[in-house]
Structure formats: C-alpha cells, structure tokens
C-alpha cells in the first residue's frame, strides 16, 4: 500500500532546474533512503513531499490527501532544526501534539501518553526537565526525533537526522527509524552516510542532478557505476552477515557540480 506517491515532480529556482521528472513512492512498512551528492535536490524533494514547496509540475499524494489530516499523520524533521526559545525537553516534545489540539484545548491524557511514549522510544525520558539548549548534539537530535514521534504519525520524513552525530547516536537514531517503520508506518530519510543507508533502508532512491539515477534495493542502487557517476567515488563492499558498503576513495578527475545545471 502506498503511503506517498509523487509523480513527475519538477522544481526550478531562478532558471536552475532542481528536480526533473522525479517519481517516488513510499510503501507501508519501509524505510526509504533518499541519497545523492550535495545539491542533488534531496531536501527540495522532501519539502515538496511535505507540501511546503509547490512543484511547477507533477503531483504528490500523501495518505488520503486531506490537509489537516496530513498534519496529524505526517511528521517532518528538517535539517539543522533551530529552536528559538529555551524550552525544556518535555515541552519541546509536547509541541508534537499541536496538530491534535484545538486552540483552547489543554494536553489531555492521550497526549501525555504519546509524549511519554515518544520520549521513552528515543531514550530521552531521563532528560525531560533539562533545557534543550544545554544538550549535546546527539541528545538534541533524539529529542527532536521524539517531538516528531509524539505526533504519532504514520509517515516520518527526516532530513539528515544523523548529521554531526557520533557513531553510537547515529546508530541509535537509525535503529529507532527502523523500528518505527513497521506494519503501519513508513519513513523517508535523507542520508549522506552510505553505510547507514545501506544498513537500515529497505529501498534507496539515488538522486543526481535533480533526476532519479537509480532506485531499488541498496545492493542494486549502490552499484559501483552508480557511485562513480553520482558521487565520483569508489567503495568497498562486504556481504559477511549482511550487505555493507564503505566509501573508499575518490575517483580521479572529480568535477564538483554546483546546484543543478542551467537549462539542460
């Protein structure tokens, strides 16, 4: 069952083509990894999916499509999240309940339960009275993830949730996302770390210069020719216990592409 369907998405900024005829779908129960070099259009695609950016062509269908329903059922974790007020962890996580509350309503027992559950799942319950700006990067990201989970969404869209995290916290986040994507849920996660992507995603979509270069199982998408073409790298592969990949070296004659290409 498809939770998100996007067809022929086209986005341009100032004549630069950011996304060109991108198709994407998210199925129930899967962790979909969105990968690609810097400037490939991953964050933009995510913004189109969440409805924040309107594509100049193409359509997106999330769940049943109704707007306020979407807010309750889809959670978005943007890149480099800014927190404007020095909130305590518990208060920040409870912000995730906003789609479920009318202006005059207070947090009810349902809400408290969801918040507690989210904090437990992300293992930040012991921090609940600490102030978010006092936390280190790893814990902070977990708290932000807890906020997203507190909404009790069906779909989670996360833009580089492990950026700047140490290996333990990075793994912790990815393990959480895996557990989340069970029978009734789905996750789209933008990742730079190919090792993690291969390890935790059921399917990958590789974007290159705004186009889908490859999509499918990690073993297929992360084939050497794809990596060479998009990232200009070579990797080492392993299959002991499970498929894994480690980026190894850059390929000679690397051209650093800027953000998209002008007018084809």
């Amino acid at each position, binding site marked *: 069952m498809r939770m998100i369907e996007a067809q022929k998405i086209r986005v341009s900024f100032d004549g630069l083509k950011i996304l060109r005829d991108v198709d994407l779908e998210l199925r129930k129960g899967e962790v979909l990894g969105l990968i690609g070099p810097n400037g490939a259009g991953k964050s933009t695609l995510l913004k189109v999916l*969440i409805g924040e950016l309107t594509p100049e062509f193409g359509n997106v269908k999330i769940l049943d499509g109704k707007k306020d329903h979407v807010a309750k059922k889809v959670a978005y974790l943007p890149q480099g999240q800014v927190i404007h007020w020095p909130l305590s962890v518990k208060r920040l996580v409870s912000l995730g309940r906003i789609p479920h509350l009318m202006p005059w309503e207070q947090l009810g027992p349902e809400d408290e339960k969801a918040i507690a559950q989210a904090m437990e799942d992300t293992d930040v319950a012991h921090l609940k009275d600490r102030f978010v700006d006092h936390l280190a990067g790893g814990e902070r990201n977990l708290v932000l993830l807890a906020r997203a989970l507190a909404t009790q969404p069906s779909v989670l869209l996360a833009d580089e949730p492990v950026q700047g995290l140490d290996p333990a916290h990075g793994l912790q986040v990815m393990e959480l996302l895996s557990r989340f994507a069970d029978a009734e849920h789905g996750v789209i996660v933008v990742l730079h770390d190919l090792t993690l992507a291969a390890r935790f995603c059921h399917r990958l979509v590789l974007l290159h210069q705004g186009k889908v270069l490859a999509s499918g199982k990690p073993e297929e998408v992360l084939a050497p020719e794809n990596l060479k073409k998009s990232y200009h790298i070579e990797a080492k592969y392993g299959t002991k216990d499970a498929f894994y990949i480690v980026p190894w070296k850059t390929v000679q004659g690397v051209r650093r592409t800027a953000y998209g290409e002008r007018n084809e």
Partner: protein
Amino acid sequence: MKHSGIHPTHPLRHAHTQDRLSEAPAWLLYGVLGAALVAVSLWSLNVGPTKIPLWNAILHPSSEGAFILWDIRLPRAILGLLVGATLGLAGAAMQGFLRNPLAEPGVLGVTGGAALGAVLVFYTGLASAFSLALPLGGILGAFLSVLLLYLFAGRLASIQTLILAGVAINVIAFSGTSLVLNLTKDPYAVLDIVFWQMGSLADRNFTHVFLVLPFILIGWGWLLWDRRALDALSLGEETAASLGVDLKTLRLRMILGTALCVGAAVSVCGSIGFVGLVVPHLLRPFVGHEPGKLLGISALGGAILLLLSDIAVRLIPSIVELKLGVVTSLIGAPFFILLIFKMRRKLL
C-alpha cells in the same frame, strides 16, 4: 557545568536553573495574577485627589462620592485594565511571532503609528463628526505600521533589522504627529502632543471605554486564537507548517489582531510603551518559555503593571501631573537597555 549551547540563534543564554524553579502550573499562575489584578483594580478605585469611602459610594448611588467612583474612577480603571492587557498581550504575541524577545508595539513603532492615525482623525474634525472614526484612525495607523514592520523584518530578521525598522517607523510617526499638531488651527492644540507621546488615563470616561471595547476584544480574540501556532513557531516556519500551521493566515491574524487592539487602545489613551516588553520578559520563565502560554498571563500582567503605574501617577506628588507613559518608560527603558546588554554578544 554548562554545555555550550548547540544552536547559534538562540537569543537568551542566561542560566536556566532558576527558570526551572519558577515554572508553575497554569491554574496557579492565573489564580495569583487574577487575584493581584482584582486587588490592584480595587486600589485604583480608591486612589484619587478626593477621599471617598468606597463602600458608601457603592451602596448609595446618588451620594457625593458615587459619581466620582462610577463616572471618573471606574472608567479610568477599566481602561487601564483594557489597555494594559492589550499591551501585554500584543507584546507577547509579537515576540512569539517574530521569535524575538525585544519585540514590542512601542519599541517597534506600532503605538507610534496608531497615535499618528488617531491624531489625523482627531484634529481634522473627523472624530467629532463620527465618533468611531477615532479608534478606526488608530487602527489604520497601527495596521500600516505592523504591515511595514512585518514586510521589512518578518522573515526571521536579526535584532538589528527589527530595531532599525522600529526606529524608522517611530521617527515617521513622531514627525507626522508633530506636524499635524503644528498645523492645526487651534494654537493650543500643539500642547496635546504630550498626551499623544506620553499617554494618559486621566479623565477618561465611559464613552472612551465603549468606543474601543469591541475592537480590543476582537483583536484579543485573533491574537489568542494563535496560541498553538506561536508554540509551533518555536521550531521554525518549516516545522510549524508541517504541524498544520497555515503561515499565511497566521500572519494575517497577527497583523490585524495587533492593529485592532493596539490601535484602538492608543487612540483613547495615547502612546504608552514598554509594557509589552517588560511583562512578557518577566513572566516567560513561569511558563517555561512557551510563547503560546505566555499570551494570557501577559495580558493579566500588563493590566496589573499599567494599573500600578496609573496609581503611581496619582500618588506621586508633583507640581505637574506625571504622565503615564513617563512612568512606564522609567521602568521600561532601563529594562530595555539591560536586555540589549544581555544580548550584546549576539548583536556583535
């Protein structure tokens, strides 16, 4: 030992340990502030150049003191409450919306613009012809100021941009007001400038109250409706949108709501500043820095602060009557400077 803060745009870096101690449940906050408001209101009714036995005046409606109580002091107290609550609420709302603790209708030029609008309507005789013209003039002036402000500094502007915008709007408003008063036929009208720049609740009557009440209440309604949206904005516009906040209508309600209540309030009481800066700042730790929760109690706090200032105006003996705006500035301006001082590392 403090961890170095992670995200770079967080404005206030003071130690939060005291804050945790001051977080209080809503019922307690509203209870305490509500009781304080009642007490201060009663005090306000009791203060004046003549001594009236309060109970007597209430029980005997045609006694000497009764007219003074009901027709002079009561409208003054009610207006003090309405205007103070408006300024507190609007200040908290602007801070939540702009994600900046320095935002305030006075500092950012909204009260100045409202005063100019009201002055134009008042001295051209429009207000005498059509009494609603006065609050409408104030509202229009406030609306244009807020619009300018949000156009100029809406998208997460830096403190400098915000304050500069406020300075510009204030300068325009002040010059415009002075000009209108200068050009009025009545040579003594220019003396009214003290009222428009410094504010006063003296000798206001019930006509003023009824003139502004509907606008103020509607403005409050629109601002309070967006409590949750302001909370959501703590995480930035993208996340807020994903939480179901319609940013366009939020902006509209913020602009109109602020314009309506601040514009109407200023049109009958003149410019009164700093209430919307001091009150939310003092009360923020009690609600754990959540902007939405701050709205209601800032309204209460603002009403209390303004009524106390108005009591001070009447109690402090002076040869010339002390102006309300002067008292709030005496409290607020040093506060403002202190806040900027605290934030100077970010300003550099």
